[in-house]
């Protein structure tokens, strides 16, 4: 007859013994070691200079056309936000149609077709911040996908397999930056992929090409001679929502505390 004490002891020992070979497998999985060691090829990153952005919205227009995002649907892979901080300490933020047509009105779009007018003398600071997918090193959107439809490539870009996505929407909820949305035509998750068809051909992304002010740049972090890498390594760059631990790879120059 086995006693309760010895049963507990033996089962704990058994479970512990089982865990040892499992942890060994985890530590010495050659595929994973190879993947972590392999640093060949590019690692695409993005650099946004908010001081240069004038809010023309050509990047949003170019992106929507290039990536076949329905032009009049209120969804977009990239967008530009306007921040107006007034002397009373309030921050007014808007992005009408994602700034697809720029910012045609001086007033702040507060929804329902209404504008909030701000006097020129009341403005403490005002600036534009372009947003796009951060292609995080720890992408939460990829972790939550139940079917393996979204994944990260070796060069750091997070892609979506349109034929495999079931449209559950977990990734749209999981992204802390709100860059994902439902594609109105394909009915699957959609997001910025740094124009993967362009950067893999040695071109720039559509938004970078349409920016006349040099506010947007795409670069390869694994190339120390890349001008974008040099800026990221030597200048005072910042990222969005660092506290989430997602390791975002879109770097910002001239970011202000009002930007979220």
């Amino acid at each position, binding site marked *: 007859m086995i006693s309760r004490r010895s049963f507990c002891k033996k089962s704990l020992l058994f479970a512990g013994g089982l865990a040892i070979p499992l942890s060994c497998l985890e530590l010495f999985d050659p*595929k*994973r070691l190879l*993947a*972590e060691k*392999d640093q060949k090829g590019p690692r695409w990153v993005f650099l946004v200079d*908010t*001081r*240069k*952005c*004038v*809010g*023309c*919205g*050509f990047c949003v227009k*170019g992106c929507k*056309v*290039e*990536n076949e995002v329905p032009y009049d649907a209120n969804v977009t892979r990239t967008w530009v936000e306007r921040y*107006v901080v007034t002397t009373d300490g309030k921050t007014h933020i808007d992005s009408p149609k994602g700034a697809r*047509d*720029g*910012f*045609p009105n*001086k007033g702040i779009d507060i929804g329902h077709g209404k504008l909030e007018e701000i006097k*020129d003398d009341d*403005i403490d*600071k*005002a*600036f*534009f911040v372009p947003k796009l997918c951060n292609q995080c090193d720890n*992408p939460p959107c*990829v*972790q939550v996908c139940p079917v*393996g*439809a*979204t*994944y*990260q*490539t*070796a060069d750091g870009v997070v*892609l979506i*397999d*349109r*034929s*495999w996505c079931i449209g559950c929407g977990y990734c749209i909820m999981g992204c802390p930056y709100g860059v994902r949305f439902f594609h109105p035509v394909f009915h699957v998750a959609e997001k910025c*992929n740094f124009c*993967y*068809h*362009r950067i*893999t*051909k040695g*071109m*720039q992304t*559509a938004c970078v*090409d*349409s920016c*006349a*002010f*040099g*506010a947007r740049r795409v670069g390869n972090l694994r190339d120390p001679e890349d001008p974008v890498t040099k800026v990221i390594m030597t200048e005072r760059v910042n990222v969005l929502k660092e506290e989430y631990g997602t390791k975002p790879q879109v770097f910002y120059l001239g970011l202000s505390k009002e930007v979220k």
Partner: protein
Amino acid sequence: MKSHVWRPLFVVLVVIALVLVARTLLVPADFGVGARGYMYGWHRAGNEQQWKDMKVKYKTAAFCKDCHPDKYDEMKESPHRNINCENCHGPALNHPDDPKSLTIDRSRELCARCHTRLPYPNSGRGIMKGIDPKTHNVGLDCVTCHWPHDPRKEGHKK
């Protein structure tokens, strides 16, 4: 042991076998762990190529330059030199095989994207030349007076 113990076991084995057969039939052969490991790289490898094969629509000024060197050179001397041809002329798409595919935008709204005066002190916008589109020659196209390729020159004359 008696058969009433073995029978459900056989049923379970048949179910497992069916699931495995269905899996090999339904899951594409290239589905597996990619470069970023199981957590971030679990995917169908063929999809990467599908994204790479997407059609390039904006072909940049370097593409326009081959046939329109005069326009390209005029632009390079202009204050508008950093603006890509396709920002106003539309994406090249199948141009020049299909010239009609270009959609040239001469609207006031296009110019107003940058030249609506917004007095923002901390952004590049604050130092840009701007007008109030509600009062500045309402109803007229900007290109009537301003030549878009080089705004220092006079515009289209009708």
